[in-house]
């Protein structure tokens, strides 16, 4: 392997049949290997003989070729144009000539090429800000549309299939029972452990029941259910509606005169708003069970004692606060999921992005809403 040319598989040599002509002889196999044949040799040759006005080819010794040869010839042509030389393609195989013609047949469309220009920092900040303002308007418009759709429902004029609503209720409600039970039970266990460890130093371990009961009923039950729903159902809504956008299914509804807001978004929102409070109550019960389990097995509190303490401490208003929280989370998660799905772009990566933003914005909204609601309930003294 001393000969570099043989190592590469292709051979390139130059001859000058006339003082103003350069003949490029191509030999061997011109196939794609480690690297594409370079035109630097030709460049040197042209520098050496500035009198050259025309380039021609001899390919009689070439065994085979593919894109490697074509890219080489494209480079040669570019070099020739740069030096104002004529290129005679007559010596190339027919197929190669045809392909070169084909490649040059459709000239590059003016303005098609993207300039990868650097946007200055201030301009980028400005772009971001106006984009954010735009998306806030969009969200508000979506919420407005959803409210009008709800209005149509109340007047009995909303177009959607009851079976869709029932199916969505089943998917968001009963099919989530298992995961809600498991997580709530474990949250109850965690609350009880942390609480009991602290209360024990005051000899007030008994008050674990208060802590778990009020904690679950007022906020943890609703919050855990909300977060589970954001990850489970909000994501599913965004993915379903996003895929329907990609497949033009929503367009098909609109052209039939059916509002996709009524037909797709409304049943999903209703299902979540109805199911989240119910799941929240269910979650409260499992949280309390978790606390009970820990208290009985680890802290020697009797079952009856624990339940009695819970009944003393937890009032109906605590449950009501939790349920109101849950209903608000239902609205927020449904809006986040449906909004992301409806405004999804028409590609598979857009569906992924919509799903991610649905979950992230859902959880973010839940936390923000909790902060507001806690302050409001505090002021109201509930």
């Amino acid at each position: 392997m001393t000969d570099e040319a043989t190592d590469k598989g292709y051979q390139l040599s130059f001859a000058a049949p006339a003082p103003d002509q350069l003949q490029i002889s191509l030999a061997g196999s011109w196939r794609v290997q480690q690297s594409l044949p370079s035109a630097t040799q030709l460049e040197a040759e042209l520098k050496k003989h500035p009198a050259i006005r025309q380039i021609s080819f001899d390919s009689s010794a070439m065994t085979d070729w593919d894109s490697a040869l074509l890219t080489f010839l494209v480079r040669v042509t570019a070099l020739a144009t740069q030096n104002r030389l004529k290129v005679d393609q007559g010596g190339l195989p027919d197929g190669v000539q045809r392909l070169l013609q084909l490649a040059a047949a459709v000239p590059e469309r003016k303005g098609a090429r993207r300039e990868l220009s650097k946007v200055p920092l201030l301009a980028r900040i400005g772009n971001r800000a106006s984009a954010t303002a735009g998306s806030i308007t969009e969200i508000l418009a979506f919420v407005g549309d959803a409210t009008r759709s709800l209005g149509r429902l109340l007047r009995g004029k909303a177009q959607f299939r009851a079976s869709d609503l029932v199916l969505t209720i089943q998917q968001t409600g009963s099919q989530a029972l298992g995961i809600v039970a498991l997580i709530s039970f474990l949250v109850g266990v965690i609350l009880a452990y942390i609480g009991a460890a602290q209360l024990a130093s005051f000899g007030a371990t008994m008050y674990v029941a208060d802590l778990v009961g009020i904690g679950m009923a007022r906020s943890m039950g609703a919050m855990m259910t909300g977060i589970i729903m954001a990850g489970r159902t909000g994501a599913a809504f965004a993915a379903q509606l996003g895929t329907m956008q990609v497949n033009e299914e929503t367009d098909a509804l609109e052209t039939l005169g059916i509002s996709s807001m009524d037909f797709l978004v409304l049943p999903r929102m209703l299902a979540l708003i109805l199911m989240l409070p119910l799941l929240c109550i269910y979650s409260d019960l499992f949280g309390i069970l978790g606390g009970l389990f820990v208290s009985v097995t680890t802290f020697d509190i009797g079952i009856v004692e624990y339940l009695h303490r819970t009944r003393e401490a937890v009032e109906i208003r605590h449950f009501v606060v939790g349920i109101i929280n849950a209903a608000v989370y239902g609205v927020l998660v449904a809006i986040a999921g449906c909004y992301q799905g409806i405004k999804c772009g028409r590609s598979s990566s857009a569906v992924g992005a919509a799903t991610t933003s649905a979950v992230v914005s859902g959880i973010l909204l839940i936390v923000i809403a909790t902060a507001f609601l806690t302050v409001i309930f505090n002021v109201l003294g509930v």
Partner: protein
Amino acid sequence: MSSASEAQPLQTGTIAEAHIQVKDLTMAYGSFVVQQDLTFTIRRGDIFIIMGDSGCGKSTLLRHMVGLKQPANGQVLYEGKDFWEADPVARKQFMRNFGMSYQGSALWSSMTLAENIALPLQEYTELSAADIREIAQLKLALVGLAGFEDYYPSEISGGMMKRAGLARAMALDPDILYFDEPSAGLDPISSRLLDDLILQLRDSLGATVVIVTHELASIFSIGNNSVFLDAEKKTMTAAGDPKQLRDESTDPKIHRFLTRGEA
């Protein structure tokens, strides 16, 4: 086998090399048989049309030939070597020589056109990023998309996506180009230009082309060999030059198909 022997034999004068052979192929989804007893030969340089009525299993046959679905029975041979009997490494080697253009273009939506073409090159060659970029530019120029390297599939029209899909199929200079419904969704002029392009590429690259289509204009203008699949009989009922089939076939169904039921 009886039905295969009923099929008309290939009647082209020159003895060309058999490039792809399908032997006694049975295609099935579970226990549902789509087609059976398919036996035909595709010669090197053929533009081979797989035709038949809707739902007869044309695309399924293509999927069996390119290695996306395993046959229930029978063989697919490339230059005499059994594709499905080969070990995975050898099978990958076979597949390196295929280029496939899908019905919905199937461009990867998260990548630009240049990146779409670059992926097979990165996977199978050791070229540098700059060289790969240059090949991608060349392939896009060949399909008339020079300058669109940095566009995403969602930013170009359906016809352009089809052509970009073809550019990706050609990335590795394959021996065999497969097309699933190349002209579906294209206007007559674009579809005619695509036919010309396929013909040009076949002539200059010397590739074998296999096309699933029921576009009669394309079938007659570029096809020189074909197989006809019958959805009811669940097997092939004819093979050969489509023009000859139109003029000479005695099977009323094939005749109706190739004349749009007008004759």
